[in-house]
């Protein structure tokens, strides 16, 4: 039952390969579960350059070849995007992607919903830190989509008027609490 020569000859190479592999990055809250979970997590990523200004008072530009967008002038600093997911799914996390090399400016991402009667409910928000280059921030939402009463919006505010602060998109993690989970309760 000795190991075949061909297999034995591959052992050093396999050991070298194992040593060369980088250590696994620390798991983040919105990463897919490593093991099978009771629910299936789904993702929806919205490109930064498809967010649009909340009003005409914003001057903005997109960054060629990056998919990002930045503020160039005007009082309006907020970019918005609707969230169009099936009713009943639950959003647990939203990750906002940005580029930030500004010592003073930042990107801040928001999750908000509305009651269609003039009231806005900001559920969560988070701002970019002082980093060099691209990064992301995560907010915890835990809200269930209900199209009967609550339209949902993602938004990002950009302070500063140059491309040192860019918004590069938002990624929603959601899951469906379907009948196979608790529908027979």
């Amino acid at each position, binding site marked *: 039952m000795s190991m075949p020569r061909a297999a034995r000859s591959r052992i050093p190479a396999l050991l070298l390969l194992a040593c060369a592999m980088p250590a696994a990055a620390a798991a983040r809250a919105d990463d897919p579960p490593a093991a099978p979970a009771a629910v299936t997590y789904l993702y929806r990523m919205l490109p930064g350059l498809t967010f649009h200004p909340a009003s005409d008072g914003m001057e903005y530009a997109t960054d060629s070849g990056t*998919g990002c967008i930045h503020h160039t002038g005007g009082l309006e600093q907020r970019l918005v995007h609707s969230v169009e997911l099936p009713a009943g799914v639950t959003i647990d996390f939203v990750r906002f992607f940005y580029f930030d090399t500004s010592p003073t400016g930042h990107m801040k991402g928001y999750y908000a919903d509305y009651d269609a009667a003039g009231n806005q409910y900001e559920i969560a928000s988070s701002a970019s830190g002082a980093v060099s280059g691209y990064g992301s921030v995560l907010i915890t939402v835990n809200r269930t989509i209900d199209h009967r009463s609550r339209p949902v919006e993602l938004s990002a505010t950009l302070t500063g008027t140059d491309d040192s602060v860019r918004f590069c998109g938002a990624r929603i993690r959601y899951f469906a609490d379907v009948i196979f989970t608790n529908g027979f309760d």
Partner: protein
Amino acid sequence: MRKTVFHGALAPLLGLAPLLAVAAGAAGPGADQAALPAGIQFPDVPATAGAGAAPSGGDAGKQYLFIAGSSLHRKDNNTLVNPAPSGCVTSNGWVVADLQLPDGVILEGVRAYYSNSGVIDGMVSITRNNGAGAQIDLASGVLFHTMGWASTYFQLIVPEAINHLSYSYVLQGWAPNGVQLCGLRVAYSLP
């Protein structure tokens, strides 16, 4: 000739160089088994049993997402957008819409519906972004001069499995004066 000069001279400045390599991605009419939108006759598209008719033959199982040209919005505040009749759009810069397909489906191409009687051709593309500054064109092409309404299918060289964990996807169009971009119909299949 004028169009050629324009594309060659200005495209790099506009960051459009990838769009010049359009011929490879453009497939012949009918490659996505087009069905006619209601109300507009696109002469290069084979007729089917009516608008929205199910694709047939080897195209069974293909799905579509049809986005009206008028629902695209500008990429920057210097772009002027003029809505045209029939859900079309004309713009002096790029207009965009995000492409929201279910995770796992196979993106195969996009058919652009348009007319072009101008001196400068329009363009369309599908891009993929990773949120960290990396963007690539999955498909792109030129909306060449037409006699009336037309459509062109731009096929991805390599079909793309939609993966929202890692990427976002953008439909982009540019419809300068004389061009009306009336819709982008994305073709995809189930895995």
